[in-house]
């Protein structure tokens, strides 16, 4: 099984999503096994003043530990990290997070571009970037930066998206390795998992 030409050299998965991405994310997280060999880092647009409930909602159907990291928290494999409400989340060299309250980017905090760009910088060609359904162009530039640094890029198939602005913006800005629906993304992750056992 090597449909997507994967290997065991990847260090992290980073995912962005906005309007219409929640169901897809829940489905992906519900299919990933405990002991998944990489950290999954997610920047999702969310209400800025609602600090609670998102992690709990994502956790209902997932076996993985899902956390909103503190500033300077170390990144561990097999854990799902969610950018906290009203903070940007960056990945630093040395494999830990830093948070910030800088101005909004693309009208968003957390901004997907910031998380994707910093992940691309830190993990280079050892990163898989995934961009899902959403209603603005946040994330497109981040996907471009991942691509430029040799990372692997996936966008959700626009026809499957509730709102396809976000994946379409990425597709028009940069070259994307795989255009997949949610079931295929799950297949991709399962294939990836096989390379680590």
């Amino acid at each position, binding site marked *: 099984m090597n449909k997507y030409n994967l290997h065991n050299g990847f260090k992290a998965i980073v995912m962005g999503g906005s309007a219409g991405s929640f169901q897809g994310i829940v489905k992906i997280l519900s299919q990933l096994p405990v002991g998944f060999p990489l950290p999954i880092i997610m920047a999702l647009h969310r209400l800025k003043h609602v600090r609670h409930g998102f992690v709990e909602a994502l956790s209902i159907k997932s076996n993985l530990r899902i956390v909103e990291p*503190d*500033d*300077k928290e170390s990144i561990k494999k097999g854990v799902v990290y969610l950018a*906290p409400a*009203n*903070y940007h989340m*960056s990945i630093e060299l040395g494999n830990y997070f*830093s948070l*910030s309250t*800088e101005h909004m980017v693309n009208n968003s905090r957390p901004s997907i571009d910031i998380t994707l760009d910093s992940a691309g910088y830190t993990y280079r060609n050892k990163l898989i970037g995934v961009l899902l359904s959403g209603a603005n162009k946040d994330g497109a530039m981040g996907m471009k930066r991942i691509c430029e640094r040799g990372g692997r890029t996936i966008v959700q198939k626009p026809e499957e998206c509730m709102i396809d602005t976000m994946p379409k913006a990425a597709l028009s800005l940069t070259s994307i390795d795989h255009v997949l629906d949610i079931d295929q993304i799950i297949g991709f992750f399962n294939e990836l998992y096989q390379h680590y056992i």
Partner: protein
Amino acid sequence: MIQDIDISDLKKITEVVYAQHGYDFRNYAMSSFKRRMLRILEVCGLTVESLLAKLSDQSGFIDTFLDEMTVNVTEMFRDPGFWRLLREEIIPGILLNNRQFKIWHAGCSSGEEVISMKILLHEMGIANDVRIFASDLDQAILEKAKKPCYSLKNMETNEKNYIRFQGKKSLKDYYTEENGKAVINPDLLANVSYQRHDLVLGHGFGTFDLILCRNVMIYFNQALQNEVLKKFHGSLHKYGYLVIGAKESMIWCDYANRFIVVNQEERVFKKIRD
């Protein structure tokens, strides 16, 4: 537009700023520092070389640099649950002490948090009993904090936070609209001293009952957070309170065990050992 800066160039910038101007950004967290530098290059239309040249020639550019460098995004009553906790538990506790009540807002930026505090104290009927010190590295933003005047768009967020804080009045009672801006009533800022202060190189000043430093140390690396926490420890009365941002941590700091957690959710700590 320049899309990236090498770490070696970032190091050159921090070295020049330190050597020529005495501000130490060498222990700032890398990603946000890099974004600030990219922003300065873009806003000022500079390359790394021309930025270094401008920083070296001792003209007033360092003030522009500091103003762009420091992150000045803040809200009134950010995290309303924290402000309710302050009103209902923390401040009543401090009032039991038999001494002048002093608060330090470390890294006060454009002053929204100071105003929130003054409103809270005013509504508790103790605004005149508390001395507030507000400090920031950035002189330009301090000037703004002294004469607070905010965009009406920002006031929408502030208003929503105030409602969640369950204040006694309407936020509108504390400002007037002039030329499309919200001008905060100057009376509100009595008993506040604004002071330029460098958390990194400066000493602590005074001894306080309550220090607020929320979402400031996130721009520092862990080594610097550790040093700054020592200064806060030295600037607190025994059993005084320190508040950091909702997603900040100090568990890896040397002085962490000199504090106890009062409220983990809102990151309120109490100094229990000298």
